[in-house]
């Protein structure tokens, strides 16, 4: 170490006993959970990691001077790493490893909540509601993991998707055989749609990539509640626009350049909670697209101010149908809550053509931590209960159901379909496909990957071309996997799996759980 380099603070203080005073502020210090560890033998001191990190975890410390230029060494601040792994991935020498240093408390029951409480009461910023992003990481069981598919043996030949066609195409919308007019239907080439993520929560680069991939594969992307940016006008045939309680960007252009309109009542991560995009994020393009003044807070109230019960929803559905001259299906998105079955039945009778149910694992740009972790129910149970209720009320074949919230892979997609969904929405999977490290800090708006931020320098980290390719890859890979699964089950069209519990069996579930899922115990 060179002489110019100042000695670390703690060594300078060594031996000066009279100065050793305790600092109560440190009682609330956020314990280090993750941190980058640098392999200084590999490190070339290029400094890219400090630029890559948007969280202020890495600082560069002068190490030496070579040819008159200072050489800096990266050091972890041990303060703000959230394990997004962006620096680790960007390091050209692979000199960084993110380590998990679990905070150890002797009290097992309190372990997780202890540090959250410290953060809430820290006198530096006391009394605040904890915010969090993405879907719940709760340790509740995933029902998807306890469901197994059937396969053909002997009595029934499996189908090889390489030799025989397996069809994933499906249609979403209202089907009434006795109606005079044929209702508009959405043609979906693969039963996977991109879930609502607004311009504001993500940036335009990501939306363009999602729209382009949806167009290429023949599915849909959803604008979320932030309106439709002009640059996306041409993707109308693959666009679902969303009308939420803030009514941002709802104008004639918005209704013209879309295939379907979705009314957002709730979101799985935060049922019963509105949204709040702080004024500083409402910059030029976002302000124009949302049709609100620059710098003003974009508030989405918890309820729609014109919907206080089901009859009001019916009026909004028909107001939208009138506006679009009955040429576009209207979808209603609700959170999966305890009473989901009668709610869905009411929505079907209120005139919705498609009903999207978002389970508690569904993602969010920002939600109170307590809401995300403890409100709502799993999508597997909700979709099954909704499907059953619609059948009992003899209207299941007339409307379409979309399952959302916690779909991680192609098997989850197919299990959701077997439990009664016509198709699924994926959101978090889209972000992960773009590289997202799931650090759960989208609300901070400084996503190091440039996905959930509108800071121009960071948004530029998303290359639209590469992102589009990745999302097409996601849809194609999952579609191929779904075909393999279907082939094994001897089914060659996706419609024959919608609500087909016969092709599922449950493992390690209670009788009540099996009953709600309408799935038989494995072995029966």
């Amino acid at each position: 170490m060179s002489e110019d380099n100042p000695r670390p603070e703690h060594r300078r203080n060594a031996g000066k006993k009279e100065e050793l005073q305790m600092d109560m502020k440190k009682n609330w210090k956020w314990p280090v959970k993750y941190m980058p560890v640098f392999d200084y033998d590999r490190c070339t001191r290029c400094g890219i990691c400090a630029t890559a990190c948007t969280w202020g975890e890495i600082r560069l410390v002068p190490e030496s001077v070579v040819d008159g230029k200072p050489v800096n060494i990266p050091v972890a601040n041990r303060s703000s790493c959230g394990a997004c792994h962006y620096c680790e991935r960007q390091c050209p020498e692979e000199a960084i490893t993110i380590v998990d240093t679990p905070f150890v408390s002797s009290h097992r029951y309190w372990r997780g909540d202890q540090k959250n409480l410290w953060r809430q009461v820290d006198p530096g910023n006391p009394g605040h509601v904890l915010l969090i992003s993405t879907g719940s990481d709760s340790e509740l069981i995933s029902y998807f993991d306890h469901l197994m598919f059937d396969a053909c043996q002997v009595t029934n030949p499996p189908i090889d998707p390489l030799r025989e066609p397996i069809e994933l195409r499906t249609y979403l919308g209202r089907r009434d055989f006795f109606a005079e007019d044929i209702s508009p239907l959405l043609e979906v080439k693969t039963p996977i749609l991109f879930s609502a993520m607004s311009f504001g929560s993500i940036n335009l680069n990501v939306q363009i990539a999602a729209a382009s991939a949806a167009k290429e594969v023949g599915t849909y992307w959803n604008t979320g509640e932030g309106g439709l940016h002009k640059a996306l006008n041409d993707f109308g045939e693959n666009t679902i626009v969303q009308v939420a309680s803030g009514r941002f960007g709802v104008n004639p252009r918005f209704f013209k350049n879309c295939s379907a309109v979705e009314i957002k009542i709730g979101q799985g991560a935060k049922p019963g909670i509105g949204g709040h995009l702080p004024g500083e994020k409402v910059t030029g393009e976002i302000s124009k697209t949302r049709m609100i003044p620059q710098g003003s807070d974009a508030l989405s109230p918890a309820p729609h101010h014109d919907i206080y019960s089901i009859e009001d929803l019916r009026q909004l559905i028909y107001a939208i149908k009138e506006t679009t001259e009955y040429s576009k299906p209207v979808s209603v998105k609700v959170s999966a809550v305890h009473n989901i079955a009668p709610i869905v039945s009411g929505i079907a009778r209120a005139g919705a053509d498609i009903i999207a149910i978002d389970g508690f694992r569904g993602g969010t740009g920002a939600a109170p931590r307590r809401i995300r972790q403890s409100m709502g129910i799993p999508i597997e149970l909700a979709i099954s209960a909704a499907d059953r209720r619609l059948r009992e009320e003899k209207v299941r074949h007339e409307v379409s159901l979309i399952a959302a919230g916690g779909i991680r892979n192609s098997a989850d997609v197919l299990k959701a379909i077997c439990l009664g969904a016509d198709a699924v929405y994926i959101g978090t999977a889209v972000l992960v496909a773009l590289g997202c490290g799931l650090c759960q800090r989208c609300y901070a708006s400084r996503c190091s990957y440039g996905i959930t931020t509108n800071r121009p320098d960071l948004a530029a980290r998303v290359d639209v071309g590469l992102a589009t390719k990745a999302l097409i890859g996601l849809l194609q890979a999952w579609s191929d996997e779904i075909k393999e699964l279907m082939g094994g089950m001897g089914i060659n069209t996706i419609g024959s799996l919608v609500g087909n519990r016969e092709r599922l069996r449950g493992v390690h579930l209670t009788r009540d759980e099996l009953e709600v899922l309408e799935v038989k115990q494995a072995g029966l």
Partner: protein
Amino acid sequence: MCGIIGGIDINGGKLNGGDFIEAISVQHDRGNGLGGGFAAYGIYPEFEKYYALHIACNNEQAAKAADEYIRAHLYVKIAEDMPTKDLHSIQWHPLLKRYFTTPGPSNEDLKLSNLGPSTVHSQKGIIDAYMKKFVFDFNRSIPDAFVMSCGKNMGVFKGVGYPEQIGEFFLVDRIEAPVWMVHSRFPTNSQSWWGGAHPFSLLEWSVVHNGEITSYGVNRNYLEMFGYKCMLHTDTEVISYLFDLLVRVYGMSVEDTCSVISPPLWSEIEEMQDESSKRKLMYLRQYFPQALLNGPFAILVSNGKEIVALNDNLKLRPLVAAKRGEQYFFSSEECSFEILCPDREKTWMLEGGKPEIVRMKEGAHV
């Protein structure tokens, strides 16, 4: 694996049951002795206005309950034991009864509001809807008895055994009929019992089926919305209910019903030149995805006026057809034609997903 045979004389001429017993016996390996059966049309001309109920009861008690139930809900013209012959090979059989009935005795029963969830749209449909509901209620109310068939001027003879034994047991060789449906069973996904043997029948529809319906869960959920109850522990019953729903209730043609049940691929529909049939097939596939049958199957469906032969669109089960003069035959294996119509002029293999529909001539009396 199962074996199926169908035969029709489009002039209404009679075909002998004995020939069909022999024809199915040469497909012996397609069955395993756990089920066989025959459906014959035009066999009760003297009672053609009455619904002929073929009832099987596991014991005397059930037979008594069944009798009371039938008399409480229907007017009974004739009640009798089915003629059968004692055989060593059939060690046990249920009590078999035959009723010629018509709805009544109370008009209350026929009120639409009492028909339960149904989709009756015409006065004409009410009586059929009532009979359908009667059958499901009967099967549910009397667990030890079930209705084998309930159509007019037709009947199903079926049970556990090889079909040649069942045929002999029911004296099928003494029956002459213009339309025959025959089945030999090798059950693979459900237990064997007398009610589980084929043909399956509801009102005038009967079905014989070789295959496995992998879309069964979807089809059952769909049918149950319209008041059908799937209680016979086998996938085949959904086929007869689908035909009943689509043809009788929705008023669709048999051709369109086949397009719903085994439609062309989306890509095939898109390549079609004829715009109107393309639009129609699109519509049928978009509107009735739950009525599509998936999995390998060869089925014969009849209502006494026509036989519909249909394969899954991948053609995963055998089905071959033959023509002799005005008579048409369908079979899982060509060997049966050597018995039924050795002098046939034409034999051909059905294509996957392409139905073959043979109709009685106008005016031909069944």
